[in-house]
């Protein structure tokens, strides 16, 4: 039975990918690069650091395959989540963005910092995480961004020492096998995701856990009393262990802003 499954998987993984398509586009179905996603097995228990906490270190790809899925042959779907509890004025503003305005406000379109929690919520690319007792180092390939977080449960800076930062003032603690990152004082120019703006009162709580060797899970809670009626918590997002290096990815040729502005002009004339 195991052999049968292995053979089936191998056939599924083989490229070119043979799937149905309209006749006029048939040649492109033979394209190299398309991926039929095959989820990784759990792989055993997670490793632990010398202090006994779970070691979150690894190269982590979004999704369950341990590799890039940008050109998956399966559709992307977002997990079910509760509606965002916007205050009425904030909901009106959020729903009032056109699709072009959403693009033009995006950190990724503008090549500006994605901030916290954007390194997870506004990033389609691979992560590298290195944990050691007392510290987490988080790199993302997307525009070569990074952050370093103390995980020893230290308090936030004193209010008089805080300044607006894209990643905020971050501190982390362990709750069992879950690392909880607590961030405040986050620059208002960032979005939570997809046009979800925030105030200077934003408080982000991120949770990271590694239930098995091959999987990392991420969840975040947003508390923003100037924008929301109550705190909101995301679904758990799955990432999986890859075995390749991050590659250089600097934003050096950004044509989209100017092109989208032309589109915005057309939109305004309608």
């Amino acid at each position, binding site marked *: 039975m195991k052999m049968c499954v292995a053979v089936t998987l191998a056939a599924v993984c083989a490229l070119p990918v043979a799937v149905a398509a309209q006749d006029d586009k048939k040649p492109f179905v033979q394209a190299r690069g398309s991926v039929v996603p095959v989820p990784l097995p759990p792989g055993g228990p997670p490793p632990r650091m010398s202090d006994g906490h779970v070691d979150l270190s690894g190269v982590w790809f979004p999704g369950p395959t341990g590799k890039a899925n940008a050109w998956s042959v399966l559709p*992307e779907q977002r997990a079910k989540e509760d509606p965002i509890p916007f205050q009425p004025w904030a909901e009106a503003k959020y729903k009032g963005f056109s699709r072009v305005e959403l693009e033009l406000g995006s950190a990724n379109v503008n090549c500006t910092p994605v901030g916290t929690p954007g390194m997870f919520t506004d990033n389609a690319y691979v992560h590298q995480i290195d944990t050691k007792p007392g510290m987490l180092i988080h790199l993302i390939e997307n525009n070569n961004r990074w952050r370093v977080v103390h995980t020893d449960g230290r308090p936030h800076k004193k209010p008089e020492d805080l300044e607006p930062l894209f990643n905020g003032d971050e501190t982390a603690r362990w709750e069992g096998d879950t690392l909880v990152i607590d961030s405040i004082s986050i620059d208002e120019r960032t979005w939570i995701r997809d046009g979800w703006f925030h105030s200077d009162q934003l408080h982000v709580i991120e949770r990271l856990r590694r239930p098995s060797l091959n999987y990392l899970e991420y969840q975040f809670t947003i508390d923003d009393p100037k924008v929301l009626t109550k705190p909101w918590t995301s679904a758990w997002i799955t990432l999986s262990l890859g075995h390749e290096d991050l590659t250089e990815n600097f934003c050096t040729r950004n044509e989209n802003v100017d092109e989208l502005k032309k589109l915005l002009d057309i939109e305004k004339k309608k």
Partner: protein
Amino acid sequence: MKATAAITLGLLVLLTSSSAFAHHAFAVEFDATKCSDITGVLTKVAYENPHAYVFVDGKNAAGEKVPMTFQLSSTSNLKRGGATFAALNGSVNKEVTVRGCLSRNGTDDRYAASFIKLADGTIQRVGQDVEGIFGTKLWR
């Protein structure tokens, strides 16, 4: 049996989790209903981010040379999909065919490319499946 269950579970995870959404929505800037196969001579590869570009001298209806710009995905996605700089650059000054979808903003001859047939006959995926060729049409 265990393996089958693990795979089913894994696929379930795939369908109920996500952070793999695109750098940004191609469908806003490009029209997935105005796509065509465009053949011409590849003149330059700009292997940069957030998007790589290939430049192709195509022809208009009168047979005149027309410089065309095709936006590809990021170098991260291209490399991992096999469309390396060397693979693309090897076709410079040679004939290629690009599946391109026209820009919505009126800029002449600017397209988003989803596939490219290189001079050696290989077809590389270089962008999002905006036409739903694989059934993966963008949801936004």
